[in-house]
Every structure is written in structure tokens, then in C-alpha cells.
């Protein structure tokens, strides 16, 4: 199969250059989602607050039950005009359509990650036995102290593998940001390919790019997992 090797190499550098955008999309969304996801996990774990619990449950179900493409299309088709209408109604001196589309990408991926992350947190918090909390309270810690010093460090250990999976999936999911004209790895290659119809070479570059980035993320998580699990009595293989 004859490929345009010059183009292959050139585009590969282009794709490598867009890795920061992909990483930024992934980690900004992840960080922005963390507090909300934690709040949702806490709400769903408490027995009271039935209405609020039902609302967040509906949100999580919706986000997990619909394809992320639809969420992207939905938000990208509606949010700009809604914001514009708001700006016009209040006579705000801003032009929404001048904003960098990456903003909408952050919003979509954060909203999606909140739902997925809250499930990870919920199961992780559930894996810490109730006695831990009781023991911490008996020893004189406040509830907040108990969470920070006792519950969370233990929950994090069991959350790590799921967190790694979530991050990898999010990283792969950001490849859809091109639908919002964000110039991430996929978009850069797509644009480069469209000049000479060299799609195969371009997408092969993207594929290799993602394998590299994902490998780095997995290695980082491997070390993070070892770090948070360092007080475990029995080391897992």
C-alpha cells in the first residue's frame, strides 16, 4: 500500500503539537468535575434529602444513558444562542460568538464527567466500612476531619483503577471536540488531511498519538496507584 510518507511524518508532528490541547481538555474537565461529582456522591449516599437525591440520580442516568455525541450536539447547538439571548436581554457588552469554542468543549466534558465521576466516588466511598467513620468520631475527630484524614485516603485506593479507566475514556472522548471546531489532535489531522485527501495517513498518525498519550496516562496512574496504596497491608500483584 503506497502511503505518502512525507505527509505522514509532517502530520505526525502536527498531531504531537496538538497533544497539549487534548490533555488540557481532559484534565480541566476532570478537575472541574471533581467537586460537583463529590457533592453528588455525598447527596446520593445520604438517606435524607429524597427529592434532591432523585434529581441528581436523574441527571446521572441521563448523562450515562445518552451518547456523548448527542450531548455535544445539544449543548453546542443551544448554549451559544441562549447565552447570546441572555447577553442581549441584559445589554451586556459581550459577543458570545467571539468566544473560543473550547469553552463549550470544557462545559460538555465537565457535565459528562461529573456524572461518571460521581459513580466512581460513590462506589469508592461505599467500599470504606462504616466502622471507620465511627472509630474516627469516637477518637474525637469532627466529621470533616474524619472524611479528610480517614475516609478519603482509603476510598482513593479503591477508586484508582476506575479513575484510570475514566480518564482514558475521557481522553478518548475528547476526540469528538472537533465537532465543536476545537483544534485537538483529531481536528488538526482532519484539517491537514482535507487538503490532499490524505485521510489514511492523518488518522494513522492520530491513532499513534492517542496510543502514546494513553500509555503515558496509564503509567502515571500506575505510579499514583502505588503511591496512594502504600499503606496497604497486603500488596496486590
Amino acid at each position, binding site marked *: *500500500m*503506497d502511503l505518502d510518507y512525507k505527509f505522514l511524518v509532517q502530520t505526525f508532528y502536527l498531531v504531537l503539537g496538538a497533544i497539549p490541547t487534548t490533555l488540557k481538555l481532559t484534565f480541566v474537565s476532570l478537575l472541574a468535575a471533581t467537586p460537583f461529582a463529590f457533592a453528588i456522591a455525598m447527596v446520593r449516599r445520604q438517606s435524607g434529602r429524597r427529592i434532591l437525591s432523585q434529581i441528581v440520580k436523574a441527571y446521572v*442516568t*441521563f448523562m*450515562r*444513558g*445518552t*451518547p*456523548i*455525541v*448527542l*450531548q455535544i*450536539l*445539544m449543548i453546542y*447547538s*443551544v448554549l451559544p*444562542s*441562549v447565552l*447570546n*439571548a441572555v447577553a442581549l436581554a441584559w445589554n451586556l457588552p459581550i459577543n458570545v460568538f467571539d468566544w473560543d469554542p473550547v469553552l463549550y468543549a470544557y462545559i460538555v466534558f465537565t457535565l459528562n464527567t461529573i456524572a461518571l465521576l460521581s459513580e466512581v466516588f460513590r462506589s469508592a466511598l461505599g467500599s470504606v466500612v462504616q466502622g471507620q467513620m465511627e472509630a474516627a468520631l469516637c477518637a474525637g475527630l469532627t466529621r470533616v476531619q474524619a472524611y479528610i484524614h480517614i475516609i478519603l485516603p482509603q476510598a482513593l485506593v479503591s477508586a484508582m483503577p476506575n479513575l484510570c479507566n475514566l480518564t*482514558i475514556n475521557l481522553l*478518548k*472522548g475528547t*476526540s*469528538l471536540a472537533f465537532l465543536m471546531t476545537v483544534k485537538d489532535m*483529531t481536528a488538526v489531522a*482532519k484539517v491537514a488531511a482535507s487538503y490532499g485527501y490524505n*485521510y*489514511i495517513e492523518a*488518522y*494513522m498518525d*492520530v*491513532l499513534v498519538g*492517542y*496510543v502514546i*498519550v*494513553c*500509555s503515558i496516562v496509564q503509567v502515571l496512574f500506575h505510579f499514583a496507584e502505588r503511591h496512594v496504596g502504600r499503606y496497604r497491608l497486603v500488596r496486590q500483584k
Partner: protein
Amino acid sequence: MRPFSPDFMFGVVPMLLPFLGVTLAVVVGTVLAGSLFGGLLAWIRMGRNTILRYVAEAYIYMIRCTPSIVMLFVVFYGLPKFCLEVFDTNINDYDKIVFVWITFILLFSAPISEVMRSAYESIDHGQYEAAVSIGLSPWQAFFHIVLPQATVTALPNFGNSVINLMKEGSLAYTIGLVDIIGKGQLIIAHHYGAYALETYLALAAIYLLLTLGVEKSFLYLEHTFSASEKIS
């Protein structure tokens, strides 16, 4: 801004539903062929051939790192060229669903092979030994003793994979397949971009029902199978 039109949202559903068949065909075809291929991968990974095992492991690792959309584009643009140059056959005119199937079979087989492998390994080897010792052939032991038990263990993860596949399958519209999302896009284009939110919400509702339906059916299957397990 134009007010939201609930009428259109409900009105668009009957227009979308005829194309549900295409969406489901993508899922069902992929699950069937992908499971076969995934089973083959799992068998290779647990087999004795070291080289094949490394190849399978590398493949599974690579798929885990590949976004569906990139794989879809690689198959859609790359495969026709590959077939033309290597086999001298023109597959450019093939229906787009063929490329979608190939893509998702490649993508689905990797996680499903891991599901199958972990389910197989969760079954105590003594079960197989006991079966062989009472005179079953290795194949009989596998099909009548190990496989039914492994299926029950694999069900929850299998269901998750199917749901993920269903959601990823929605990407097929990007190469021009007219499934429900593709039809939705056509409807939106037909109205010059108006009614986008209404159409997408209708699509979201359909997908939500589908994923919940799959989830519930797998829970039901799991319940039925593990019930028979407990009685015996």
C-alpha cells in the same frame, strides 16, 4: 430566541423511529460478530502460542487507547484503499453500514475478550477437571460445564460493553450512515438548523430508553441465571 417547541419534539419521534432498525442492526451485528472475534482473542490470550499471545495483547492494548471516531475514520478511508491496492477489489460502493460494522467489531472485540477471559478464569479449574474425569471430552467439558458458569459471571460486564457500544454506535452518522442520529441531522438540515434542540432531545430520549432497556434485560438475565444456580 425562538421558544422551545414541545410539539415538534413529539412530532419528530415517528419520523426517527423507522431508522431505529439501522441503529439496532449496527449493535446486534457488532455484538454477534464481535463476540465471536472476542472469543477467539480470549482463546489466543490464554493459549500456549507465545507470539500469537503477544499479538493479541498488543491488539487489545491498542484498541483500549483508540478513540472510536478515529478507528471509524481509519476504516472508512483506509479500508477501501487497502482493498483496492492489495486485493484489487473496489469496496468503495459498499453500504456504509459495512464499514461501521467492521469498525465496531474491531473495537468491541477487545474489551469483550477481556470480559470473557476474566469470566473464564473466575471458574475454578477443578470444575473442568471433574468434568473430564467423569468421561466428558475437553470440548464437552467446556461447553456443558465451564461455559454456562462463565456466562453468568460475564453477564454484568457484557451488558456494560453492549451499552457502551450502543452509545459509541451513534458516531456512525459522521461517515454518512443514516441511522436515527443521521436522520435527526437530516431533519435539522431540512429545517435550516431550526428545531435542533427538540430533535436532539427526542434522540436522547430514544437512546435513554434503549440503554435502560438493555440494562434491565441484562439484570433480568443475571437474576434468572443466578436463581437457578442457587437452587441447585
